[in-house]
């Protein structure tokens, strides 16, 4: 137990990873990957959280497992396209099953979610055990991933220009496309998230936006699962916007504050993992949780310290 917590060596944690150019490039890729994943999840997550679908991310990320495994078995490779198709199909099927059970049967939403994604996940694990025993895909890798191996992945070149490891480039593209999509459809996303009745009266295709958002979520999960694992994804959907909501209340501000928060999670997680010698992705989540506690303590809105004397909620006064 005594050596469970290592000695805190300031130089080793904060300086050594960045001391030589090789280390700098190597570790920079890891931190950048963490930032890309958190930022893209955080931005989608801001909308997911206000739609009260926070656990849908959990459900979908578990539900895509059989799709991934089937795609792997069929294509016999970890190529991106079949994996992506398989995962999206499984994720959409999972989503559809949940909604169908909720609407057409007496099963309630929470049970429908729990029931569907655990069954999908179980199916995925059995498929792995039966058919993909010697494959490079296993459930543990899916669950916690290993972001530290990012620089070892195949690199992408455009002409002579060296772009970077494949997952990193891909995640960067995902982040940019999500940002563009949110900017393009900002108004529609806002109105469908906050006032469903108004958006129906305005004639907006509410269903399409819902499924579009779910597809974006599935897209992000698939492109990041291999390197960071689903736990980080679920956490990053919820933590940034919730933490930000202790300081700002307007949606654009929440969206903007996911960027510095993600950067902080990524760097903090890297340092934490460097000290604690553990998985980087989970260290990022632990840092995110610490940030959440700090925000809860000192936050302007509903923070413990600043609102200590105020009545807790309006309903209590009545």
């Amino acid at each position: 137990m005594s050596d469970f917590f290592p000695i805190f060596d300031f130089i080793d944690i904060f300086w050594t990873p960045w001391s030589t150019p090789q280390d700098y490039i190597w570790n920079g890729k890891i931190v950048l990957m963490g930032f890309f994943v958190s930022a893209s999840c955080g931005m989608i997550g801001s909308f997911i959280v206000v739609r009260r679908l926070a656990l849908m991310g959990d459900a979908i990320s578990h539900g895509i497992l059989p799709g991934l495994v089937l795609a792997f078995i069929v294509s016999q490779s970890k190529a991106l396209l079949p994996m992506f198709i398989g995962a999206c199909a499984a994720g959409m099927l999972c989503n559809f099953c949940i909604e169908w059970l909720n609407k057409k049967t007496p099963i309630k939403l929470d049970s429908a979610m729990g029931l569907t994604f655990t069954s999908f996940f179980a199916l995925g694990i059995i498929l792995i055990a039966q058919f993909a025993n010697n494959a490079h895909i296993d459930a543990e890798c899916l669950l916690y991933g290993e972001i530290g191996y990012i620089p070892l992945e195949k690199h992408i070149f455009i002409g002579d220009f060296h772009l970077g490891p494949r997952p990193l480039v891909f995640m960067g593209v995902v982040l940019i496309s999500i940002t563009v999509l949110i900017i393009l459809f900002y108004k529609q996303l806002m109105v469908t998230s906050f006032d469903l009745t108004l958006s129906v009266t305005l004639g907006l295709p509410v269903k399409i936006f819902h499924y579009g958002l779910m597809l974006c979520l599935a897209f992000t999960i698939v492109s990041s699962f291999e390197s960071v694992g689903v736990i980080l994804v679920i956490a990053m959907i919820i933590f940034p916007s919730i933490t930000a909501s202790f300081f700002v209340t307007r949606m654009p501000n929440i969206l903007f504050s996911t960027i510095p928060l993600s950067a902080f999670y990524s760097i903090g997680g890297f340092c934490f993992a460097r000290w604690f010698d553990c998985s980087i992705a989970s260290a990022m989540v632990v840092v995110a949780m610490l940030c959440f506690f700090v925000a809860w303590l000192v936050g302007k809105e509903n923070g413990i310290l600043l609102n200590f004397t105020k009545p807790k909620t309006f309903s209590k006064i009545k």
Partner: protein
Amino acid sequence: MNATKTFSLTLIFLPISQLLASTKDLDFFDRTLRFFSFNDYSVQVVVLGVIFMGIGCGLMGGLVVTRRLSLFSDTLSHAVLPGIVIGFILGGFKSSFVVIIGAMVAGFLGVTLISSITKYTKIRLDSALGLVLSGFYAMGVCFLTRIQKLEFGNQSGIDRYIFGQIAGISSTDLYTIVISGVLILAIIILFYKELLVTGFDSNFAHSIGLPVEFIQYIFWMLLAFTVITSLQIVGVILVSALLIIPAATASIITQNMKTLLLWSSLFAVVSGIIGAYLSFLGNSLPTGPIIVLCSCCIFIIILFLHWKNGLLLKWYRLRGKEKKIAVENTLKAVYQELEVQRFSKDLILISDLAKRRRVSVPEVCQEIIPLIEQELAFVKESSNPKLRGENKIALSPKGWSEACRIIRNHRLWELYLTNEVQYQADHVHDDAEKIEHILGDELVRKLEKILSNPTKDPHGKLIPSQQDIKRGYMHIQ
């Protein structure tokens, strides 16, 4: 009944297991015999473990699902991971007792965090659950990867907590499972009323002086205890499935809480035994996922094929009603067409009918076919078996009285809405359109009495009289 159910379910799963066994080149019958003769010590441990786990999970699951806490149980099962790892380190990788204590502490912290987040901030329950789930689980993974890299990191014992490995359970593990199953059973029997009332109406429970918060915490601790003892068999991620799926299956069958608890634990036990058996057949199959898939299969079977609430049967009944309503709507259209012609003829053109129904001619021909089959209408002057727009149809006596009855229902209801319920005359049609198919004789008599046998509806149209219906044919003026 239960025995036959188990037997029939085994029959369903036999071909699947045979398939699995044949692919693995195992002696299928030998293993089946070994499993069901119940002589092997390992088989005894596994089956007893699965039975008591099923009882515990089924009972707690019933309470969880009716309280709509399914995702809460999922969160709890993830949140105990850091406690398990810490317990492993403190207990020197041997004592499962310390692990349980550690997991209980982590579960308690998780529950407290969720309830204080929802109580003291504006964060909604689903986000709070997600926060605690991912945060605690990540903390667990953090510790886990840490001790994997340490020198004493013999973590072979921990891995089975994540995906579950039934073959690895020892007799002490079995004792904890049995004790937890019996404990849950005893607590539910003793405090059945209290648990029921706090679950369904906590305000009422508060008003009769029950310590609601205390009972809630006891319930959560019991849930954590169930989750932890089942972890070794099904693993962290899937333990919530074992709570949710059997209870959800039972909730399709019954609305009564006691019956629900009974069914739910039965389903959990049955799927546990089948899962253990299948996992025993094929060596590489992980137990937890197999058990979950079995209970999912039972869920799907019950959902579709249950004799009272099954979807297929419901769908079949609905189809029958829809057909009846379609026939009645067509009859009504024929009547209205005749009415427009002031009943001067008894034949109408199919193309006119199509115009009135606002559909195309081929569609209206499709609608007429069941009418002819049920001898409610017949086609005049046509040697061609295929219906066309220029063909004419007439109502048979039976069809005529049926059409009169529907129209009468419709117009009586419209009149009732305008005269007695003070609706505007232009608002009553849609309501009447629905109710005309359902009104029974008794209700029609009542309406007649209330409206004192009217002859005209609010739009000034004649209401077909009882004589019209009884006469069974159209009188041409």
